[in-house]
């Protein structure tokens, strides 16, 4: 139990501010803290969260964050549907998730409280903007007539701090000449300033940020900075009896760090791979939540020769990429489940053409349109099996936001060196989550060697489907004399690539394409254990974004003496060759997944191991505690 929690309990039970002796700068020392900012989507919650994150990371804490957007862009103000949230966990020790529950819940209105109160730890703190609890807001949040949770004692298990944010913001900006709307828009800065004060963070970084963001509008810079400072000073001068908290810098691996979010990490990974391979990067994409930010990020980097093409639909997004791949680009298409479904036929074509192509699925809740802004891992089967005919292709999944960089880099390497389309799986949680990243230098990145066909000696005929030892065919791009050839989606004769309807040839080619994908296993690293003993009772096998929760849970279980280990697979098709031997070293293999059991089926099918699935299909990640409970019950 964190010190913060103890303190708030103590405060609550005495009803008085408590004096502490083990303090620094008038603050209690905590090893970690979790804050959830929540408000209307128009309240600037994401920006507030981002700013707190950057400042905290720069201070030296380990951090992990997760935003929670409403599904509708313009959900009615003040309603439960319109609540936007941003959770950050930070600590002086290593942090792997954005936290199961929060110590501090900051709510800008009644709906934000109602939607998030279950996220608050028992005895936790609430900072509430009282103006967001007027009769109108209470009604919109669907509190019964006459009920105000801030007044009726229903929050007596928590420590509630009521702030008149709107009023104080107005007072701060009196005479600034700004209109009511513009003034109202700065109120998140007041809250941020106050939170900075509570957690002993300085507002300098945010001031710089404001100055840059509104460089062309000095009056707006002025207003935001004033309000930010006002919030900070309010902490110092007011008598809210708020206990300040100090979370000291974490002892993390020495090096130079930056904060990294999953989607930008994916974008940068693609650019890095293209650079290292010496290929121009082409992205064919159609906007879709939660993948669009990869398109946005790549569009910013045209000076790297990145060509982004916003196609007319998902099919054109992938087929334009296939055209670019034929022309010699490192070609990529990005989407989410529904869009991937539309691309399916073209993925089959890419498999027949045996051209390098990276297909990115930032998974969201399905089926159909499903839960666009919620996370899920339910497209694994789609990635592995979801095509007509026997159509295997490599599948790689990222496990943390920053890991999107390395995983997509590997996807590109395999695509280019093995002449195949490759699936890269991310999800909504990774896409929007952030963590500090000890970024590599370009020289530390693995080389990527394109498999280009070169002009032939006079008199020799080019064989477009002749293969190397990896069974990869050569990449013959238009413009090279003597390599003119035709490719297509009809079954091919090996080597010549001519159309063939021969029964034996078809069976041969189906097995050859499968073997080609299987041989990718020769170029990927062996599977390692993330944590725990090499043999034991329980192995928690995960993939994708469950990494942080499993890591936290297994660490706790090991600390408490359980015989448990953690193995996280990044290469799912094909698996690393040694995966089976690892799985056989434990009495029980449990597989937590944010789906109805997909990896677990593949494991059972492939290895005839009685692996047990653990499902969570709520559009939200597992908490570490949930996984811990499963470890306990399987021990």
């Amino acid at each position: 139990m964190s010190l913060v929690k103890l303190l708030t309990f103590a405060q609550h039970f005495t009803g008085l501010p408590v004096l502490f002796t083990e303090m620094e700068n008038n603050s209690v020392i905590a090893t970690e803290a979790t804050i959830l900012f929540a408000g209307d989507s128009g309240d600037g919650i994401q920006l507030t969260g981002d700013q707190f994150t950057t400042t905290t990371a720069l201070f030296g804490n380990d951090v992990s964050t997760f935003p929670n957007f409403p599904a509708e862009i313009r959900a009615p103000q003040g309603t439960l549907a319109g609540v936007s949230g941003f959770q950050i966990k930070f600590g002086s020790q290593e942090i792997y998730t954005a936290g199961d529950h929060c110590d501090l819940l900051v709510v800008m209105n009644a709906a934000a409280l109602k939607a998030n109160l279950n996220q608050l730890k028992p005895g936790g703190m609430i900072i509430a903007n009282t103006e967001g609890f007027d009769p109108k807001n209470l009604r919109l949040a669907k509190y019964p007539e006459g009920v105000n949770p801030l007044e009726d004692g229903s929050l007596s298990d928590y420590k509630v701090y009521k702030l008149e944010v709107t009023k104080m913001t107005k007072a701060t900006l009196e005479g600034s000449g700004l209109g009511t709307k513009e003034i109202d828009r700065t109120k998140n800065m007041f809250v941020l300033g106050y939170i900075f004060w509570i957690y002993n963070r300085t507002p300098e970084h945010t001031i710089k940020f404001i100055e840059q963001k509104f460089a062309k509008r000095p009056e707006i810079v002025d207003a935001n900075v004033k309000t930010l400072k006002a919030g900070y000073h309010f902490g110092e001068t007011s008598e809210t009896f708020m206990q300040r908290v100090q979370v000291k810098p974490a002892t993390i691996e020495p090096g130079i760090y930056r904060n990294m979010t999953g989607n930008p990490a994916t974008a940068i990974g693609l650019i890095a791979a293209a650079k290292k391979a010496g290929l121009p990067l082409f992205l064919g994409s159609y906007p879709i939540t939660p993948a669009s930010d990869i398109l946005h990020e790549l569009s910013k980097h045209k000076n790297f020769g990145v060509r982004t093409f916003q196609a007319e639909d998902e099919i054109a997004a992938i087929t334009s990429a296939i055209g670019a791949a034929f022309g010699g680009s490192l070609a990529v298409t990005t989407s989410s489940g529904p869009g991937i479904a539309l691309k399916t036929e073209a993925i089959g074509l890419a498999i027949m053409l045996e051209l390098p192509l990276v297909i990115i699925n930032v998974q969201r809740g399905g089926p159909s349109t499903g839960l666009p802004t919620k996370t899920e891992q339910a497209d694994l089967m789609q990635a592995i099996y979801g095509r007509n005919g026997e159509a295997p292709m490599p599948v790689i999944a990222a496990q943390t936001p920053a890991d999107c960089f390395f995983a997509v880099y590997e996807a590109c390497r395999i695509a280019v060196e093995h002449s195949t389309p490759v699936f890269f799986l991310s999800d909504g949680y990774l896409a929007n989550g952030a963590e500090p990243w000890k970024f590599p230098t370009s020289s530390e990145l693995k080389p990527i060697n394109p498999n280009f066909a070169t002009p032939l000696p006079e008199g020799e005929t080019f064989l477009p489907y002749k293969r190397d030892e990896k069974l990869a065919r050569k990449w013959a791009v238009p413009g090279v004399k003597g390599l003119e050839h035709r490719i297509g989606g009809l079954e091919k004769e090996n080597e010549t690539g001519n159309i063939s309807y021969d029964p034996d040839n078809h069976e041969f080619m189906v097995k050859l394409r499968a073997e080609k994908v299987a041989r990718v296993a020769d170029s990927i690293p062996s599977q390692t254990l993330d944590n725990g003993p090499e043999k034991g009772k329980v192995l928690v096998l995960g993939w994708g974004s469950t990494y942080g929760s499993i890591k936290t849970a297994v660490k706790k279980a090991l600390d408490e003496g359980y015989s448990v280990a953690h193995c996280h697979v990044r290469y799912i098709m094909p698996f690393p060759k040694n995966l089976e031997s690892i799985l056989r070293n434990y009495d029980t293999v449990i597989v937590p997944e944010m789906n109805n059991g997909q990896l677990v089926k593949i494991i059972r099918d492939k290895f005839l191991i009685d692996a047990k699935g653990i499902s969570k299909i709520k559009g939200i990640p597992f908490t570490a505690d949930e996984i811990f409970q499963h470890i306990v019950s399987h021990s």
Partner: protein
Amino acid sequence: MSTSQLEKVPFTSKDLVTDQDVRWCPGCGDYSILKQVQTVVPELGLNREEIVFISGIGCSSRFPYYMETYGMHSIHGRATAIASGLKATRPELSVWIVTGDGDSLSIGGNHFIHLLRRNFDVNILLFNNEIYGLTKGQYSPTSEAGKVTKSTPMGSIDHPFNPLALVLGADGTFVARTMDRDPIHMREVLKRANLHKGSSLVEIYQNCNVFNDGAFEVYTDKKTKADETLFVEHGKPLVFGADKAKGIILDGFTPKVVDLNELSVNDLWVHDESDRVKAGILTRFFDEVNTEPHLPRVFGVFYVEDRARYEDVFNQQIADSIRLKGEGNLDKLLSGNNTWEVK
């Protein structure tokens, strides 16, 4: 990878023939189109290795297998989108799209119109036979209403597309029509299409002698051709008919057939390829031949417009960005702007 700067190595029609057996039905109009393309392409001043033929699915889409150039026989309706990605990234290539009425106007309708509005510099050969041939005879989006086929035993109830009106509506910048049975005209139109800097759409009336024989017979048959067709040329009056005795005038926006024994040639509508409104009217010369009175069907280049090519602007943005920001530095990208050191 560009070879366009290299000296041109001449090649002949024979060099364009592949070792694959041509598998269209005997008598199919596709043979003539293949022959004209193989005749014209060596005259265009291109290197063979710079040429790419991309097709979708359908009888016409087997075309790339018979052209000894780079080629892709892709999936149904997507040739236009594949060509877009190729042309965007390799603007120096000469990209040809071979498609049919089902491929481009039905399953691939979306990519087709978007390619046209973007104005990629590609040549699109739309083989229109008003039927589904490869799937053995169902009606197509250009089949006339009432058409009896395997899937429409009581007659098709679909209103057909007018392909060139659609192309103009999608802001196509080169709009032309020709036919399989007029090789000389086809070759001229293909050359013009290749010269145009932008999306060139050539609709080719193609006879499917197995499932829709004679669909265009009135336009190709010697007995009826002169009276049923109007071959337009830039700057020339709209004259047609046996003995060139008929012409077209514009009465307001209404085209009318006139007798040149009664009216002077000087009173006729003079074709202007840059006139978009009139090109629109020409595409509407689309009457059924069995309705009277009816206008002749128009062949030739309807409309040409000089508009920026997508790939030029697309790649210009890359060049501009490099000029403004400098060539991207990977290490700077990896580190970003906010870093901190842990000691």
